[in-house]
């Protein structure tokens, strides 16, 4: 077998150009990707052979979705929600939030140890974990800080990525934590466990044991392949519907005990100051939320007529029961249709068909989950928790459509 030559995108395009030898090439501008030259394609692709097979697939040169990384080891990068369809986030576009960078871990050496209030403290290799009966579940992970800037200091030029891009969804494969807890024999008096990651901050969070008996997982695969390093390779604790940080990546140790450990990440961070001079702690479930991803800034509606308003809705407490869309800043609401089947703690894609008459419009979406919780306005959220609230932002979000068709972020709900 011969190894196909490695071609970069540029070389491939140049080769294509060479084949058609000076024929006029069609180029389309790439939005927001200034330094990249326009992709060159032949005028008629049926008149020459296409590119050969390759070891790895690549996106069309016309598509260049990217995360927006801060570049710091303790930083984040956001999912380009405006570029995505359906509900699954391509693994290379899953948002990142690391507190000490991405550790380099050898799956042959990485282990998960469960100890503390158990009958049999056990250490599992990654291979051990994969021998247990598996489950496949589609869930979102959302950073508790998702949308902070859009809540505190909204600007018209914010994109869906900046407003809500710390939300990503994957199909996970893993083993129920309950299976592992039965294996070690968790003692009845254990009420909390500490989950610890193998990164440079040795991330620790306290979790009520009840979550393990409910739907917690130890996952090793994401969208059909092993987890990406940025998502916890080789093992991650997945607590469906709960704030991102507690889904401890690179998990190496679980200790069973009788009280929370009060780690930095559940005291100094990820707590919500309240107007009465207290701070809420252990706010695990992410309440119902939605965002319109199309149209969104920097789109411009090119023509009057029918447009599909499309977006995502999710709840950390169960299924989404209803999504309503308003095109008149909340004066009237219309039920959106679901384009995918609502599943627990998993986003649904919604759509509402709207005929734009060329007038100014304000597009809003509002989600209701199966428990009856309704996504609040920003005004209601500020009244309840204050502008200084630090995490768990789920206000109704919107987009302002100008007569020119220009779309800008609208936060004043």
């Amino acid at each position, binding site marked *: 077998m011969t190894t196909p030559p490695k071609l970069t995108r540029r070389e491939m395009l140049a080769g294509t150009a060479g084949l058609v030898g000076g024929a006029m090439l069609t180029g389309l501008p790439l939005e927001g990707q200034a330094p990249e030259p326009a992709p060159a394609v032949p005028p008629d692709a049926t008149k020459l052979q296409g590119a050969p097979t390759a070891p790895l697939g690549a996106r069309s040169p016309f598509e260049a979705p990217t995360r927006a990384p801060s570049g710091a080891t303790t930083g984040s990068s956001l999912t380009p929600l405006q570029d995505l369809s359906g509900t699954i986030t391509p693994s290379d576009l899953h948002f990142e939030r690391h507190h*000490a960078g991405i550790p380099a871990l050898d799956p042959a050496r990485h282990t998960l140890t469960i100890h503390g209030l158990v009958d049999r403290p056990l250490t599992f290799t990654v291979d051990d974990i994969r021998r247990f*009966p598996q489950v496949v579940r589609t869930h979102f992970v959302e950073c508790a800080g998702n949308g902070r800037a859009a809540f505190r200091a909204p600007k018209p030029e914010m994109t869906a990525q900046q407003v809500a891009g710390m939300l990503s969804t994957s199909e996970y494969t893993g083993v129920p934590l309950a299976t592992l807890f039965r294996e070690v024999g968790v003692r009845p008096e254990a009420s909390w466990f500490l989950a610890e990651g193998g990164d440079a901050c040795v991330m620790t969070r306290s979790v009520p044991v009840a979550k393990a008996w409910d739907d917690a997982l130890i996952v090793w695969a994401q969208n059909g392949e092993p987890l990406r390093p940025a998502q916890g390779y080789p093992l991650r604790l997945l607590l469906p519907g709960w704030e991102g940080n507690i889904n401890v990546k690179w998990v190496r140790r679980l200790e069973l005990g009788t*009280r929370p450990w009060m780690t930095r990440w559940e005291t100094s961070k990820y707590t919500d100051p309240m107007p009465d*001079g207290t701070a809420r*702690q252990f706010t695990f479930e992410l309440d119902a939320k939605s965002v319109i991803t199309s149209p969104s800034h920097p789109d411009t509606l090119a023509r009057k007529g029918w447009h599909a308003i499309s977006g995502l809705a999710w709840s950390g407490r169960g299924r989404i029961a209803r999504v309503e869309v308003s095109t008149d800043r909340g004066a009237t609401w219309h039920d959106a249709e679901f384009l995918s089947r609502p*599943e627990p703690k998993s986003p649904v894609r919604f759509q509402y068909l709207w005929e734009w008459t060329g007038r100014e419009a304000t597009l809003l979406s509002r989600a209701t989950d199966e428990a009856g919780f309704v996504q609040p*306005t920003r005004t*209601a959220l500020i009244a309840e928790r204050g502008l200084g609230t630090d995490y768990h932002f789920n206000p109704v979000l919107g987009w302002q459509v100008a007569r020119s068709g220009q779309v800008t972020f609208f936060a004043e709900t």
Partner: protein
Amino acid sequence: MRARTNLNTRTTLACLALAGAAACGDAAANGPATSASTPAAAPAVGPAAFTDYDGAAVAGGPGAGKRFGIGSAAARTAIAAMDRDVGPDGAELPPGRGTVAEGRTLYTAQCAACHGLNGEGNEPTYPRLLGRVADAEGFKFASDPKLPHTIGNYWPHATTLFDYIRRAMPHPQPGSLSDDQVYALTAYLLAQDDVIADDATLDAAALRAVKMPYADRFRPDDRKPTAAPAAARP
């Protein structure tokens, strides 16, 4: 939490028989599998069945006592090497001691480059650590986003400081400090924020006795999961 029927004994056994079948846990929980060639009835068995793992009614969780025999006994030394967490009661605090003065020297040498000479930080990568602000007396963080969440203004437990410095600091060489050094740095930071005296020495007993100024401000989640207040409806 509602009591649920314990289905997991059957689940566990059926899963073993169905090795390789998809959605094993749920399929088995909804009824005994007839044979390995029967496809798992995925559409009829939604993820809702997953909550059958809820074992509140069963001491030790559902299927307690059922095992696959996978994994190896965790070596006591291996656990000890990782088990360095310190909870709010300080029960796990190690031997050792450190003074505020020792902590000041260490801070200047190992911490100030990132967090600033006075703990002012370099946000967002290196958080501000220090500064008791008078406005924080009312714990008005909800109305004032600029109020700094410093150790003295916000942190509810002194043990958290010890635990975090020991596991994650200093940033260029995480986990490299001795327990004495961690006690000294904890003492220095607490003294700078007027939580303990400037001439204090911290050891396990002294750290356990420290009460943070705003410890009583933290309360568990009390949100209503079912419906938002009427005012929240747009």
